[in-house]
């Protein structure tokens, strides 16, 4: 299938690669279908909306930066994407980039779970005391110079 994207123009993806968020993503309820796109060799991917060409999130594998990251979920939280257990799913986290001061963080508090077998996904909200909303992976250069 062909998909229009702001960053890459028209691209062709396989329907098996479509990731569907039946409940939407908080703040973006209108967008249900996405695809993961790689750009370059780094650890980051785009989670590109199939409905809005200009909407794409930066996501990454949390274990790349936080190897100890482990999430615990109740089975009922897996049921709506028909995931039997967590080990059978993929876990991604959103990456935020801020300017002034420049910071790159990942959202460990609300990871995205993907069931590759049926293409269903959801963003889960973990108890806020477990993991931070803004886990630092890169800080402003000038702070590094100063330290």
């Amino acid at each position, binding site marked *: 299938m062909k998909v229009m994207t702001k960053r890459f123009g028209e691209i062709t993806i396989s329907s098996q690669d479509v990731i569907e968020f039946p409940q939407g993503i908080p*703040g973006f309820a209108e967008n249900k279908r996405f695809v993961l796109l790689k*750009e370059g060799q*780094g650890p980051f991917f785009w989670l590109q909306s199939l409905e809005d060409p200009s909407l*794409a999130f*930066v996501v990454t594998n949390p274990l790349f930066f936080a190897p100890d990251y482990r999430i615990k979920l109740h089975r009922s939280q897996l049921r*709506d994407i028909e995931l039997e257990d967590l080990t059978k799913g993929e876990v991604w986290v959103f990456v935020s980039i801020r300017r002034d001061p420049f910071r790159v963080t990942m959202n460990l508090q*609300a990871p995205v779970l993907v069931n590759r077998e049926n293409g269903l996904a959801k963003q889960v909200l973990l108890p806020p005391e477990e993991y931070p909303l803004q886990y630092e992976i*890169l800080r402003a250069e000038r702070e*590094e110079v100063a330290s």
Partner: protein
Amino acid sequence: MLILARKVGESVVIGDNIEITVVELRGDVVRLGINAPVDVPVYRKEIYDQIVKENLVSSDVDLSLEELGNMVSNSRNKKK
């Protein structure tokens, strides 16, 4: 906004399958019990709002992933 008065132990029902019960009143804190189907997520509003805000930041990126990857790996190399 619909406003209903409820006592401890009383409930409101929303649609066919959501029930919210006032469990306890202590000072200015109300404890609520919520019965809802698994596909209806229930969140504390301030937490939900933070996630929405953070998702908005994640969707607002003006770098390429290659640039971002380079910046992160450079900074990691420096730390080593």
